[in-house]
């Protein structure tokens, strides 16, 4: 229990550091941040507008006061208002977050369903055709950037074969089938690269477990192959897979940004990209804070899972 609390506390500290850093980032900019934010068209900004935005963002007040204000806002899930249309950033994020989460969930599922069985099969038949072919394919899948894979999927499946539309979004409540169909290609783009990593780690850790005594004992007891693989090999080989999977979460979240953009999936990334283009500071920091919190939260979850499967971690 103590282990669990300590890990949770560490996550909270990390979250606080990120909030502080993102808050500070606008003050690190040399010169006047507001003028810089407004100067995208090359011309110098209107002084009255600069003054107004400075007051909107609270930049005219003492820095400590701004910081306290920011933390208070966060405690009530208030991330400020968009500089473009004055809408609530938190409300927009709440609307888009589930779409990003379902994309990540399906991508993770695809990668595990492909990666783990393939990894175990390859490890049990090392050097055979399947093992060699899968290893080359994994190297390729790991190398190809997610947005290239997504773009090529569109080219082949929607442009050449006309099987699906090139992207877009339909609410699940309106047309469940179409919703899943549109979700499939973006999830595959992320899932394939991830499957390659899961495959490699599963294969390597299975190979490490195979020659161990308890596997030999299980075999000597006369257990069937199926039971040995499922109960003796898989359970022990999966621990490193969980660890590496957790380390991949960061790049997974980065990957969703690109893939959502490729497929016009209206998740957090569309908001982030248009925010960056419009130099909409509250929107960008809001989305970044939420994704970072997600990153920390998922890592915490994986650590807890890890502690539950392996008691040695709980020291």
């Amino acid at each position: 229990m103590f282990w669990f609390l300590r890990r949770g506390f560490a996550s909270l500290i990390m979250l606080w550091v990120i909030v502080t850093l993102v808050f500070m980032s606008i003050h690190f900019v040399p010169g006047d941040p507001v003028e810089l934010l407004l100067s995208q068209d090359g011309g110098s900004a209107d002084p009255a507008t600069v003054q107004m935005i400075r007051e909107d963002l609270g930049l005219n007040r003492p820095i400590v006061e701004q910081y306290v204000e920011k933390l208070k806002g966060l405690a009530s899930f208030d991330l400020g208002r968009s500089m473009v249309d004055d809408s609530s950033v938190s409300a927009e994020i709440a609307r888009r977050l589930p779409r990003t989460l379902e994309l990540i969930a399906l991508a993770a599922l695809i990668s595990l369903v492909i990666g783990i069985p393939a990894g175990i099969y390859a490890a049990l038949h090392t050097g055979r055709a399947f093992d060699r072919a899968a290893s080359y394919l994994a190297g390729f899948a790991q190398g190809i950037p997610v947005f290239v894979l997504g773009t090529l999927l569109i080219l082949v499946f929607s442009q050449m074969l006309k099987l699906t539309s090139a992207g877009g979004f339909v609410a699940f409540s309106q047309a469940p089938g179409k919703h899943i169909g549109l979700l499939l290609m973006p999830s595959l783009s992320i899932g394939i690269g991830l499957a390659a990593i899961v495959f490699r780690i599963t294969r390597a850790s299975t190979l490490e477990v195979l020659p161990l005594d308890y596997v030999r004992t299980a075999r000597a007891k006369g257990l069937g192959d199926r039971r040995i693989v499922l109960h003796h090999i898989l359970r022990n080989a999966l621990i490193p897979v969980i660890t590496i999977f957790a380390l991949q979460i960061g790049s997974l979240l980065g990957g969703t940004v690109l893939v959502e953009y490729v497929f016009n999936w209206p998740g957090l990334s569309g908001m982030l990209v248009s925010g960056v283009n419009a130099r909409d500071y509250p929107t960008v920091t809001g989305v970044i804070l939420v994704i970072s919190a997600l990153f920390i939260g998922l890592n915490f979850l994986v650590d807890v899972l890890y502690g539950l499967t392996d008691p040695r971690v709980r020291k």
Partner: protein
Amino acid sequence: MNGAFLKFTPRQIPAYLLALLLVVSLLAPLLPLQDPLKMDTAARFAGPSGAHLFGQDEFGRDILVRLIFAIRNSLIVAFAAAILAGVIGTALGVLAGYSRGLTEMLAMRFIDIVLCFPPLLLAMLAVTLYGPGPVTLIPVLAIVFVPSFTRVAHASVLSVRSQDYVEAVRSMGASNARVMFSTILPNIAGPLIVQFSFTVAVTVVLESGLSFLGLGVLPPAPSLGLMIGTGRATLAQAPMLLVWPCAALTAMILILNAFCDDLRDRLDPKSSKIRGQ
């Protein structure tokens, strides 16, 4: 050991391909190529011809020349960022590992903070504040990869610092700076070189992603990510406009990855066990 580097094996193919990429991109401005920005609107979307082997793009610019210059830009950004990250990260790691105490604590906490952010997001935050373009791109990509160099350098210094030869140099009265940079640094170079090659490979991917979103290399400068981004608009008319940069980017990344794997196996023999060989 030295002989092994000279003998040709199939595993050296990535190294030769990488060398070819580097030479062509370094010499690109000197080669008898067309201007990658020269437009020829009469020949928009023209197919392959003798003068333009890969055809022409939506402004009639030569695709092959643009690909070569895009690879050049990619590698310039990647190497610049990796060198910057390598110098800062290594200095920080060596300092932390050698002096221990407060310096070590501060340096290692600093990199923990940077590691909290997914790399792409950190880059996007910087672009919001400073605006897109190479002047933002290189320092930002460098900051993203400082922590990995610091970690590698720190861990290597810890394993080396109490060795007899370090003790010997110190007892002869060498200064701390001399011990750190002329005694310890050459002895931990192996893992750092491996880290450098990985950083170049990952930076190429990250830069292309940012440019694809329109937040990295700015048009009209050629960049693979940007070419893929703009090629999407003309998907139906000219699919090859999309296929070429996709193929070039993927090939470049695969070459870099294969080279990194090979380099790691040579310079860091411990890690090859993990790969089950």
